[in-house]
């Protein structure tokens, strides 16, 4: 129970930090998808049911501060996380560092496309006044996010997995 409360507080603080501190730095806001970095950490640290429940909670919190229709981030995140989980367990079975980076890249791409699709759906049914157009500008936006989100993830991965030996066993659980 205490562990769950702690995880909830950490996730809330991370999203709050992203919305009310890091968003002021244009480079970070334009090039890094913090929510997917959180999702990747949860993928490595939790089992399936916990993972999907916490992903849903992260999505709902992020949707509170989203400019698009409520639910677009949550639904995109759940489906992206599901795809990432299936790939991680069934296809990227080596679980090497390179695999994690590739998985991060796939997540960013999948999330970008799903998010655009959901905003279009929500616009169509009248939930929101805006939607994302998938044009060259948006493709470049996703490409930048892939590069820099993977870069930030690698830094975090090295920091937690190499420098703290007591995290090493916990950061990637055995499946």
């Amino acid at each position, binding site marked *: 129970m205490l562990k769950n409360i702690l995880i909830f507080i950490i996730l809330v603080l991370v999203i709050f930090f992203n919305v009310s501190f890091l968003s002021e730095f244009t480079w970070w806001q334009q090039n890094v998808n913090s929510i997917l970095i959180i999702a990747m950490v949860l993928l490595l640290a939790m089992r399936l049911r916990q993972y999907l429940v916490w992903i849903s909670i992260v999505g709902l919190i992020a949707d509170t501060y989203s400019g698009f229709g*409520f639910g677009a981030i949550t639904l995109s995140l759940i489906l992206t996380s599901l795809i990432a989980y299936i790939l991680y367990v069934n296809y990227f079975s080596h679980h090497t560092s390179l695999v994690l980076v590739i998985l991060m890249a796939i997540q960013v791409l999948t999330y970008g496309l799903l998010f655009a699709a959901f905003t279009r759906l929500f616009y169509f049914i009248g939930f929101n006044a805006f939607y994302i157009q998938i044009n060259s500008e948006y493709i470049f936006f996703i490409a930048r996010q892939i590069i820099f989100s993977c870069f930030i993830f690698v830094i975090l991965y090295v920091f937690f997995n190499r420098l703290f030996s007591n995290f090493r066993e916990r950061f990637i659980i055995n499946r």
Partner: protein
Amino acid sequence: MKRRLYIITGVILAVVTLLIFFGYGTIVKPFGDLFTLILRPLQGKSFPAAQAINDYLARHDKVNDLVAENENIKNDLEKLRIENSRLRSEIKDLNIIRDEQEFLDNQGYTYVTARAIGRTSDNILEEIIINVGKKEGVSDGLAVVSKQGYLIGKVVETRETISKVLLITDSRSEIAAEVQNETGAPGLIVSHLGLSLIMDLIPQNEIIQSDQMIITSGLESNIPKGLVIGRIGSVAQNPGDIFKQAAVITDLDYRRIDIVSVIIGQK
């Protein structure tokens, strides 16, 4: 194993979808409002702190550019002072150079002062989050002005304690405006690649010049007439076209917005 995966995913997706489409007003929204109420004071501290750090980094970055920029700002200020003297005599009820409260009080606007506490989490829209909401009388579609009296955007979503403001620099923003020339040339303020503003759909026969002021036209129901947007930079016209465009110059830095006012109505 696969079956377990599908069952868990299906249940979670079903619960979330039901919450989003049927439970938003009764279950999710109250939690969200409570959540934003708890976090609002923290956001009020952390966002200005981030702005201060950003300002510090920007100040120490390029000294030579700052010196040149300072000279340009001094020249622009002088031009604006001259412009101000000319326009004061021409416009009846509009105070060009305004401190925030002095301008709004002169125009008889009722307003709510707010602080920017964050930006939206989608990383795509140019939207800021301000620390006032329905409790303070804010509703969707209201105009938001900066401390210099410039229109910066409009409210697009209101919750109990916070609101989201779509900046006019977002590519999805469109503001009905007019040029302060003899005929009040109409046009539409749109963002150009998310970096600058242009005034589009100006009729070809309208005569407009650089440095003429652009104000809101009052055609939108909640945005009063006369809010300053900027001034005309260059004009792009093709004789064969029905409309022409003008670049809009504004001295406001849309990445450095802290204190704003939401115009609720007119007294």
